[in-house]
């Protein structure tokens, strides 16, 4: 099962290596990981989506993260009310598509073309996993050349 874990860490060099090293050394799977500064410049937030086979492994992931000296707090958001968002950028070739149809689709998903020329367009979309998966599945019909995603960020709403 997938769990979204929010981790506050010291904003120091090497912290990401400690975390990724921990995951690889202990055989835990990371689905996605996003890092950025917070309201406090000395603290970064990492949003890690882990795929844990069972509760025991999830517990170990959380405890092992907590044990790292540079980690301040570990919160399992899956057990709370939270909002998650992810940004995707998609490169679409415009040569053989119906541009009007594409624009209708993008509007439906509140997505937009952020840059375009005669040959291609870069589409930007933001949303939760379900929203983006639906968009991407419908975008398939237009074919896309490249796709990049930020990984999820999340915040609790309590």
């Amino acid at each position, binding site marked *: 099962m997938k769990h979204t874990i929010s981790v506050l860490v010291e904003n120091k060099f090497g912290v990401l290596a400690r975390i990724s*090293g921990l995951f690889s050394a202990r055989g835990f799977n990371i689905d996605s990981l996003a890092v950025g500064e917070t309201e406090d410049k000395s603290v970064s937030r990492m949003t890690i989506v882990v795929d844990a086979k069972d509760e025991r492994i999830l517990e170990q992931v959380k405890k092992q993260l907590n044990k790292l000296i540079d980690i301040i707090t570990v919160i399992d958001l899956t057990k709370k009310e939270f909002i998650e968002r992810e940004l995707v950028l998609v490169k679409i070739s415009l040569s053989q598509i119906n541009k009007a149809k594409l624009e209708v689709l993008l509007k439906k998903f509140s997505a937009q073309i952020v840059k375009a020329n005669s040959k291609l367009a870069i589409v930007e979309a933001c949303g939760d996993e379900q929203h983006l998966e639906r968009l991407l599945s419908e975008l398939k019909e237009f074919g896309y050349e490249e796709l990049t995603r930020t990984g999820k960020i999340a915040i609790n709403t309590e």
Partner: protein
Amino acid sequence: MVGSEILIECLKREGVEVIFGYPGGQVLPIFDSIYDSDINFILPRHEQGAAHAADGYARATGKVGVCLATSGPGATNLTTGIATAYMDSIPMVAITGQVPTSLIGNDAFQEADMTGISRSITKHNYLVKDAKELAKIIREAFHIASTGRPGPVLIDIPKDVQVQDVEFVWPQDVNIRSYKPTYFGHPGQIKKAAKLIANAKRPVIYAGGGVITSSACPELKALAEKLNCPVTWTLMGIGCFPAKHELSLGMLGMHGTAYANHAIMEADLIIAVGARFDDRVTGRVDAFAPHAKVVHIDIDPTSISKNIKVDVPIVGDAKNILGQLIEEIKKTVDISDWLKIVETYKNKHPLTYKKEGHLIKPQYVIEELEELTQGNAIITTEVGQNQMWAAQWYKFEHPRTFISSGGLGTMGFGFPAAMGAKVGCPDKQVIDIAGDGSIQMNIQELATCVSNKINVKVFILNNGYLGMVRQWQELFFKKRYSQVAISSPDFVKLAESYGAVGIRVTKKDEVRPAIEKALSLDEVVFVDFQIEPEENVWPMVPTGKAINQMIDGLA
């Protein structure tokens, strides 16, 4: 003050009495400051020896061990010693030189990414980029190494930081917002545990190295005696409870006593204290202690429910929690029937070996050593059969007297660890029980011991084999002895050439006089006991079996 002077000043303020270290290009400024310092400095003959010696010193004294090496190969040579300390939760600070900050990442001469290399074998590590941070980092390093679940901390100091001139400011206290170990048990959990304990009919205490780390041996004994509860321990727990006590079950697990393993398998409650249910203890995990509820006391939350599902976890310091438990438990049920059952296990499956034959039995050597030292020596071991025989046959009565690489199982550990232990406890007899294979892995420290008059004794149980691997090949690979016959130098001449005393023992009746002589000499002594070549360690739990499915090869 320049960085290297700050380093030495901080080490003094941290109470460091001895540094085990080796010079080199990127630590020249540090060695220049050492030249003026009154800290005892021991120069081993290999950096690995420095790390194990610092570790042995820490295990024997409970203080933080300090080792020091130059960048690159000096630093990488420390890694086996750091990993050994990490696996056994030993407080250690390893200081390494690094190429100047301007060269880091350039594949400079003798450059190695030590914070990267040591990340998974240290509790924490630091690369110091500015001498202004040095004092704070050293304070933090000693704090982290010695508190919570202890472990090694590495400080990598580039050469330019060692010569950088800054104002020295000693931080009054350490405050790391992200590091706050739990020391006292949760009262609710203590109550739950006390209730389980008070009603258990077949309890067993299972104690590990954490009991020794937290100095909880008196509390452990008090709890055992209050409950009349049998006590077994792990390899790391040896010495936490007197082996000759009537409630003692000895060590459990793969080469534990049969009666300890049977008791665990029949127990209805296991009180685990500072132990981590290692695979050498549990055998087949899903068959381990099938009737037992488990109370687990440990300062490291990750140890809890990692291998074995725990019913009542209590996170905190063993000494505090055992004290809290003793107060909380008022009345207990009568368990005299259980003690009778345990007694029958002891009578039916005693720890034993075949005593006949004219060849020297290793177990006999250790029994004699125990008698002649009255259980008062510090025993270090190498890894393999020598380690298991020492663990089984020397009856340890005191904590910090058995020093062995438990988690990592590092051959070559025992001799330099003995050296460190002797430096920390100069008035004690320190004896390394070695094999002919292991001793050759760090034998160069003979020179260190002789030149510093660190008068340890090394008892080589010489069987001409890498004995434990040979035993496995005998039992599980149809006696196809692949690369386990090992030749050795003449250990007597070798010892003598270093300026130590060498004694060879080939007959049974020479064993006792040789031990007496070795113990009486205030010199470094190597005793080469030529033992039965194919003696095995019994009993043994084969891998994948439950711990009561032991084989003993004695029938």
